[in-house]
C-alpha cells in the first residue's frame, strides 16, 4: 500500500508564523511525493487542530502524518494521540521542529522559510519508511522504595504508606530524621524542628506499610520501570533491633569517646551511641572500624586498645581480665615484651607511640591475683600433655585447661617458667612476678611434673600409654651455638652465656671472673654482661662483630648497659681464646668492616687484615645464639625437623608430623620473642581442641586466613584538634644503685601517669571491644559478632530523597573557620541552640580551653559563604537568608535582646509565604542589617576595642563605607551542596547530576520530579537547595508520581527500542559489552544476541557498533535516517539553497 501523507504546519500563535511563511511551506509540501493533504493552522495542538488531523485521516485515507511545529518533547505525544484516535498507528507520525530549530533561531524570514521547507521535506520523506510499532505495556510492582529518611523521605514514605502500598524506606544513618532533626527551630513560624519532626519519625516507625531499613544503603538496582530489584545492604549495628530498650546504660560503661557526627563535631559521643534521644529506631549502634593496628600487630592477639581504654577508666581489674583472655602472664609481658604494638601505634603521627607495655605492667601490678576469680571450667575427660613450661607451654596449658581438658605439665628443671625463669635476669623480671602468674595458671587445676626430662625420663609412647590424647611440645631452645674458635674448650673461664644466666637465676651468684668479655650482640649478651657486672666483675666488655646499628638487642637494654658502665667493642670479631694452665687470659680479636648485606639483610662483617689484638680477660661468655637441645631426637624418629634444626609444623595448626603432637615456641621458630611464643601457643590450642573434637584442622586454617587484618584498614581519622602530649616515662633506679642489686631497674607508672598515658590512645578502631557494654546491657541486646547482610526487595518505582551536604567552609581561609574557635557553620549553630545539643540548648561560645562556657555579646552572621560565588557554587543556596534571620531571632531570644547581632547580606531573599513578614519582625527586634558580604574574619586588632575579638571586615555597599565589626562569635551561612556520594548514588539509580552536582530532573517545568530513568523520582534537596516547605511538597509530589504508577498497575514503555536481526547476527557479542542497561543476552543455542525488550532503553549504542548491521533501533533504522537526510538533500535544490 503506497503512503498517503497528511502535512500540517502550525503557526504557534505567532511563534512560528512571525518568521516562517507557513502558507508557503504548506504549499511546498503539497508538491512532494505521496502528500495528499497539506495545511497550516494557528494552533495545531489545540482541540480543533487535532480534530483536523483526525478528520483528514478518515476523509483522505491518510496512513502517514507529519506535523511541523514546536518540539517532539512537548507535543509528539499529543499528535500521536490524535493519530491513534483516528485509527492510525502512532509511529506513523513524524514531527518537524520549526519553532526551536527555525523561527526562534533564524533572523531572516526567507532563510527561515527555506529551512522550514527542508525540514518538512525531510520529515515527509522519512515518514514513508515508518513501520507500525506495537505499543508495549508492562506490569508495575505495587511496592515502592524511598531512599533517604530525612523529612522528604519520611513524607514520601508516609504518603505512600497511607495509600496502602508497601514502602521500603532506606536510611544510611542510624536514625531517620535527616538534617531537619539537627535544627533547633524552623523559619518563619519558629516551630521547634523536633516538635514537628519527631511525630513524623514516630509515624514512620508505626506505619505498618513502611518497612524501615536504617543504617543501610542501597548497593545495587537492576530491572526497569515497574520491575526494579533492589539490593539493600544492612550494616551491622552490633545491637539487636527490637531487643535494645534504649536505656543507655551501655554508654555509661563505654570507655571510648569520639566526636559526634550528629553534633557536627562540636559534641562527643561514645563508641556505642544513639544520634539523639528521640532517634528512630531507638536502638543503639556500635561504631566499629577495622581493628586497631596495635591489636593486629600483637602476635598473641591481645585486645590492646581495649585494655588501654579500661585503664583510662580506672577499671584495672577488668583490664587485666581482658589481657588474660589472650595472655596468661600480663605482669611478665608488661616487663619483657618487645611491644610490636607500639611500633604500629598511630599516635606516632602526632607525637610518639602510647607506652602500651608499661600500661600493661601497671594494670597487672594493680591487681591481686588472689582476688581474681577463676572462671568456671566445664571439665572434659581428655588428657593433654604439655612438655615445657616456658611461655608457649604455659599458654597451651592454661587455655586448654580453661577449655576443660585435663592437663599435665612436664618440666625438666626444678622450677617452672622456661627461659622466662632461667634466661631473663631478675632485675628485668623479678621471679616473684613470674611465680605469682604461674601460680594463678596452675590454680586452674593443672598437674605439674618438674625435673622430668622429655626424651630421658619419658617418651611420646609413654604418654600415649598413659592415656594422653594429645601432646604439646614447647621445649624451647636452651642449647647454645659454639664459637668454633681455638681455646673455646679451656676448662676454666669459658662459660656459655645461656648457661651462665641459668645458673645465676637458679641461685648460683658466683661472678664469672674479674674481667669479663661477652661475645655477641643479642639480648642474651647484654643480659649476661649486666648480670656479670652486678655479680662484681670489675670490667665487662661486649664484643660484637657488626656496628651498634645492627645489634639485635633492644635499644633500651643497650642503653641500660652503657649507663651501668659496660664497654662495647663494635666491629670486632673473636679469633682465639688465650689461656694459661687451663685458665683464660685474654680474647684475641680482629677488627672488621661492614661488607654487602648477607641473607639476614644485615651487612656482613669482613675481617681487616693485620688488625689482630688481644683483650685481656679472665672470663669469656659466648652468647652467639641458641638452638633446641636435640639430644633426645633419636628416641622420637617420627618427629620431622627442618634444616634449621627446629621442629617442623604446619604454620597455622602447629601440628607436627605426628597427628596428635603439636609444637610451638622457640623449638619451632628458633630463638624468638615471648609474645610470639604465646601467639603460637594459641594457634596450637585452637588446633588441639579441633583435633580432640574430631574436627577438620583444615577448616581452622581457612578461618584464620579469613580473620587476617584488612589490606587497607579503615581506622578512625586522627582528629585535627588533638594537641601533642608527652609519652610517659616510668622512673628508673640510678645506674650506680643498680650495680649492687638484682632489684628491678624500672618502676611502674603512678596511677595518675597511667590514666593520663592511656588517654593518649587515639582509639583507631573506635569500639575497643572491651565488652563492658555487654556486661552493662540487661536486655542482652549487644552482639559484637553481628554481620552485615544484604536484603533483596522488588519494587515498581523508586524515590530518591538523599538530601544535601553542608559545604565545609575551611578551604575559604579568609573566614577563619577551624582557625578561630568561635567561627561556626550554620549547622554547628543549630546544634548549639538545640536542646539535645552539647550545650543543652544554650548559645555559648568556646573559652580559651575550648569549653562552651561564655555567652556571646556580639555575633556576626555572614551570608553566601560558598554560594553565589563563582569560585565555589554559582547558585543561590536559597535558605541561608531565612535561617540567618532565624538565628538573629534565636540569639536575641536566648542570649538577650541587648546582644548585638550583625547580619551581613548581599540580598535578602525572603520569597516564601510569611518570609517577608518574618524579615520585618527580625528588623524590629533590633538586628543590625549590613548590605555587603564579609570579605574576611581576623583576630588582628587595630584598636583596643577590637582586642580579643573576631573582626568581620566588610564593605557596607549602601553607605559605600568599609567596616570593621568586632564580635565574639561568627556564624558562616555556608552553601548547601550535593552529597559527596551523589556520583555513586546517581550511578546506582541511573540518575544524572547537573553542573551544580545535584541530581538532574527530567525537565525543570514539565518533569521536575522525574529523572532520566523511568520510574525513578527525586524529591527534596538532592535535586537542589530548598527549604522544608518546598521539600515536603516535592516529597508528596514524588509519592503521587510513584503511586500513580503503582495504582494503575501497568505502564506503557516506548517501542523505539533495539532489535537484533537473528538472520544476520554473527554472534560476536560486541553489543553485550556495550549495553549500559544489560539489556542484551546471548542465546547460546542459536548463537545470536537477543535484546530483552523490557530492559532496553533504545539508546542505540549497539546499533552504532554492530559489525554485521544486525542490531537496529526500531523507528531509527538506517533506511529511516537516510531517508530523512535524502529528504533534506533533495529539498535543497527545490528551495534554492
Amino acid at each position, binding site marked *: 500500500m503506497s503512503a498517503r501523507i497528511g502535512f500540517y504546519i502550525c503557526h504557534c500563535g505567532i511563534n512560528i508564523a512571525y518568521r516562517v511563511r507557513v502558507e508557503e511551506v504548506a504549499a511546498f509540501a503539497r508538491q512532494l511525493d505521496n502528500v495528499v493533504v497539506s495545511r497550516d493552522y494557528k494552533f495545531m495542538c489545540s482541540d480543533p487542530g487535532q480534530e483536523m488531523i483526525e478528520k483528514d485521516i478518515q476523509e483522505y485515507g491518510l496512513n502517514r502524518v507529519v506535523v511541523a511545529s514546536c518540539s517532539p518533547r512537548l507535543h509528539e505525544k499529543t499528535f500521536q494521540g490524535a493519530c491513534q484516535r483516528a485509527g492510525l498507528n502512532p509511529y506513523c507520525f513524524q514531527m518537524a521542529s520549526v519553532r526551536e530549530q527555525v523561527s526562534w533561531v533564524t533572523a531572516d524570514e526567507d532563510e527561515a522559510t527555506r529551512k522550514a521547507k527542508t525540514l518538512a521535506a525531510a520529515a515527509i520523506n522519512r515518514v514513508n519508511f515508518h513501520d507500525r510499532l506495537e505499543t508495549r505495556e508492562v506490569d508495575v510492582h505495587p511496592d515502592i522504595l524511598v531512599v533517604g529518611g530525612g523529612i522528604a523521605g519520611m513524607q514520601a514514605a508516609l504518603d505512600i504508606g497511607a495509600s496502602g502500598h508497601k514502602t521500603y524506606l532506606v536510611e544510611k544513618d542510624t536514625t531517620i530524621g535527616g538534617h531537619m532533626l539537627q535544627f533547633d527551630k524552623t523559619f518563619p513560624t519558629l516551630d521547634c524542628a523536633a516538635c514537628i519532626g519527631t511525630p513524623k519519625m514516630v509515624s514512620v516507625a508505626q506505619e505498618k506499610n513502611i518497612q524501615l531499613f536504617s543504617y543501610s544503603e542501597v548497593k545495587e538496582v537492576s530491572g526497569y520501570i515497574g520491575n526494579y530489584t533492589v539490593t539493600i545492604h544492612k550494616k551491622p549495628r552490633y545491637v539487636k533491633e527490637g531487643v535494645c530498650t534504649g536505656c543507655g546504660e551501655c554508654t555509661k560503661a563505654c570507655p571510648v569517646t569520639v566526636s559526634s557526627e550528629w553534633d557536627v563535631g562540636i559534641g562527643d559521643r561514645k563508641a556505642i551511641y544513639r544520634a539523639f534521644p528521640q532517634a528512630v529506631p531507638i536502638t543503639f549502634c556500635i561504631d566499629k572500624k577495622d581493628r586497631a593496628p596495635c591489636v593486629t600487630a600483637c602476635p598473641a592477639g591481645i585486645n590492646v586498645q581495649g585494655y588501654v581504654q579500661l585503664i583510662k577508666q580506672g577499671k584495672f581489674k577488668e583490664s587485666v581480665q581482658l589481657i588474660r583472655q589472650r595472655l596468661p602472664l600480663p605482669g611478665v609481658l608488661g616487663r619483657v615484651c618487645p611491644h610490636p604494638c607500639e611500633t604500629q601505634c598511630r599516635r606516632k603521627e602526632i607525637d610518639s607511640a602510647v607506652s602500651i607495655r608499661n600500661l600493661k605492667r601497671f594494670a597487672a601490678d594493680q591487681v591481686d591475683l588472689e582476688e581474681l576469680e577463676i572462671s568456671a571450667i566445664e571439665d572434659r575427660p581428655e588428657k593433654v600433655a604439655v612438655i615445657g613450661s616456658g611461655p608457649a607451654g604455659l599458654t597451651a596449658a592454661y587455655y586448654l585447661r580453661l577449655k576443660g581438658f585435663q592437663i599435665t605439665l612436664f618440666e625438666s628443671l626444678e622450677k617452672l617458667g622456661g627461659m622466662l625463669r632461667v634466661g631473663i635476669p631478675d632485675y628485668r623480671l623479678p621471679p616473684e612476678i613470674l611465680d605469682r602468674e604461674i601460680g594463678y595458671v596452675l590454680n586452674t587445676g593443672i598437674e605439674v611434673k618438674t625435673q622430668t626430662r622429655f626424651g630421658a625420663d619419658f617418651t611420646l609412647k609413654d604418654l600415649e600409654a598413659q592415656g594422653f590424647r594429645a601432646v604439646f611440645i614447647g621445649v624451647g631452645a636452651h642449647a647454645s651455638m659454639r664459637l668454633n674458635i681455638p681455646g673455646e674448650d679451656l676448662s676454666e673461664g669459658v662459660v656459655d652465656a645461656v648457661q651462665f644466666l641459668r645458673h645465676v637465676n637458679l641461685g648460683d651468684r658466683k661472678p664469672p671472673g674479674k674481667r669479663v668479655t661477652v661475645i655477641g650482640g643479642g639480648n642474651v649478651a647484654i643480659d649476661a654482661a649486666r648480670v656479670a657486672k652486678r655479680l662484681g666483675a670489675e670490667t665487662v666488655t661486649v664484643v660484637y662483630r657488626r656496628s651498634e646499628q645492627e645489634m639485635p638487642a633492644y635499644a633500651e637494654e643497650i642503653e641500660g648497659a652503657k649507663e651501668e658502665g659496660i664497654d662495647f667493642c663494635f666491629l670486632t670479631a673473636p679469633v682465639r681464646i688465650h689461656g694459661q694452665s687451663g685458665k683464660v687470659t685474654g680474647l684475641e680479636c680482629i677488627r672488621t668492616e661492614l661488607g654487602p648485606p648477607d641473607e639476614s639483610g644485615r651487612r656482613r662483617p669482613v675481617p681487616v687484615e693485620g688488625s689482630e689484638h688481644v683483650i685481656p680477660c679472665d672470663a669469656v661468655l659466648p652468647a652467639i645464639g641458641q638452638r633446641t637441645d636435640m639430644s633426645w631426637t633419636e628416641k622420637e624418629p617420627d618427629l620431622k625437623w627442618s634444616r634449621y634444626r627446629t621442629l617442623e609444623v604446619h604454620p597455622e595448626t602447629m601440628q607436627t608430623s605426628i597427628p596428635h603432637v603439636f609444637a610451638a615456641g622457640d623449638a619451632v621458630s628458633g630463638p624468638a620473642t615471648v609474645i610470639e611464643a604465646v601467639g603460637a601457643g594459641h594457634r596450637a590450642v585452637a588446633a588441639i581442641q579441633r583435633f580432640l573434637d574430631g574436627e577438620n584442622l583444615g577448616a581452622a586454617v581457612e578461618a584464620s586466613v579469613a580473620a587476617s587484618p584488612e589490606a587497607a584498614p579503615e581506622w578512625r581519622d586522627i582528629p585535627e584538634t588533638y594537641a601533642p602530649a608527652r609519652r610517659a616515662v616510668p622512673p628508673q633506679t640510678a645506674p650506680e644503685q643498680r650495680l649492687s642489686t638484682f632489684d628491678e631497674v624500672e618502676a611502674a607508672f603512678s596511677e595518675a601517669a597511667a590514666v593520663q598515658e592511656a588517654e593518649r590512645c587515639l582509639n583507631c578502631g573506635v569500639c575497643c571491644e572491651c565488652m563492658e557494654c555487654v556486661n552493662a546491657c540487661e536486655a542482652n541486646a549487644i552482639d559484637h559478632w553481628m554481620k552485615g547482610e544484604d536484603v533483596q526487595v522488588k519494587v515498581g518505582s523508586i524515590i530518591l530523597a538523599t538530601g544535601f551536604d553542608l559545604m565545609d567552609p575551611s578551604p575559604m581561609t579568609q573566614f577563619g573557620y577551624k582557625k578561630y574557635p568561635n567561627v561556626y557553620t550554620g549547622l554547628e549553630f543549630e546544634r548549639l541552640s538545640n536542646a539535645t545539643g552539647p550545650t543543652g540548648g544554650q548559645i555559648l561560645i568556646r573559652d580559651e580551653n575550648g569549653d562552651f562556657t561564655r555567652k556571646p555579646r556580639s555575633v556576626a552572621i555572614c551570608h553566601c559563604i560558598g554560594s553565589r560565588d563563582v569560585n565555589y557554587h554559582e547558585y543561590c543556596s536559597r535558605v541561608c537568608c531565612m535561617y540567618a534571620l532565624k538565628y538573629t531571632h534565636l540569639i536575641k531570644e536566648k542570649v538577650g535582646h541587648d546582644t548585638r547581632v550583625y547580619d551581613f547580606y548581599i540580598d535578602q531573599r525572603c520569597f516564601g509565604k510569611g518570609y517577608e513578614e518574618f524579615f520585618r519582625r527580625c528588623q524590629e527586634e533590633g538586628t543590625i542589617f549590613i548590605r555587603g558580604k564579609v570579605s574576611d574574619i581576623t583576630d588582628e586588632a587595630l584598636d583596643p576595642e577590637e582586642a580579643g575579638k573576631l573582626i568581620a571586615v566588610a564593605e557596607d555597599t549602601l553607605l559605600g563605607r568599609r567596616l570593621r565589626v568586632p564580635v565574639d562569635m561568627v556564624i558562616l551561612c555556608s552553601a548547601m551542596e550535593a552529597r559527596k556520594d551523589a556520583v555513586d548514588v546517581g550511578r546506582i539509580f541511573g540518575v544524572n547530576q547537573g553542573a551544580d552536582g545535584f541530581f538532574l530532573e527530567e525537565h525543570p517545568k514539565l518533569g521536575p520530579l522525574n529523572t532520566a530513568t523511568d520510574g525513578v523520582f527525586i524529591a527534596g534537596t538532592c535535586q537542589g537547595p530548598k527549604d522544608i516547605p518546598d521539600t515536603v511538597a516535592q516529597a508528596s509530589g514524588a509519592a503521587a508520581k510513584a503511586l500513580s504508577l503503582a495504582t494503575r498497575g501497568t505502564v506503557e514503555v516506548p517501542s523505539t527500542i533495539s532489535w537484533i*536481526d*537473528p*538472520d*544476520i*547476527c*554473527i*554472534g*560476536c557479542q*560486541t553489543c553485550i559489552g556495550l549495553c549500559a542497561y544489560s539489556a542484551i543476552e546471548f542465546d547460546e543455542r*542459536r*548463537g*545470536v544476541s537477543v535484546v530483552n525488550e523490557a530492559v532496553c532503553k533504545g539508546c542505540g549504542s549497539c546499533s552504532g557498533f554492530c*559489525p*554485521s*548491521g*544486525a542490531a537496529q533501533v526500531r523507528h531509527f533504522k538506517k533506511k529511516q535516517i537516510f531517508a530523512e537526510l535524502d529528504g533534506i538533500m533533495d529539498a535543497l535544490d527545490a528551495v534554492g539553497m
Partner: protein
Amino acid sequence: MSKEAKKRILVVADDPDTLIFLANLLRCEGFDPCEAESTVDAVHQAKSRPPDIVIIDMMMAEERGIHLYRCLKGNEPWKRIPVIMLCTIERETFFQFHNIQKFPSGRALPLPDAYLMKPFETAALLKTVKKLTSARRIQTPAMKRMEA
C-alpha cells in the same frame, strides 16, 4: 594481471594453517587475498573494501561460518558476492543438518556459489575461484557507493 585488476578474495578461517595455505596459494595465482581469523574481522574487512569472492571455512567453531554466510547473504551490499564454502562434511548432509536453505526467520537463504569438500584439490579450488571471478559481477548501487 595488473595490480589494479587483482581480484580481492576474502578468506575466513579460524585455523591458521588453512588461512596461510589458502592465502599463499591465491597470492601465487595472482589474486589479492585478505585473511580474516574471525567473523567480526571478516565483516570489518568486507565493510572497508568489499571482496570479489569470499571463501569461508564452514568448520569454524560454534557455527560461525554459517552465521557469517547468513550475514553476507542478508545484507544488501554483500548479498551478491560469490561465496565458496569449504567443509569436511558431504554437501547434502551439511545442508540438511544445518538447514542452510533458510534464514532463522524462515525466509529463503540462497545456496552458496560453490561447495568444496576438505581436503580439496588445489586445482579444483583454483578452477572454482577463477570461474567465479571471471563471471561478470553485477554491482548494486550500494556496492558502488561503498567502493567509492
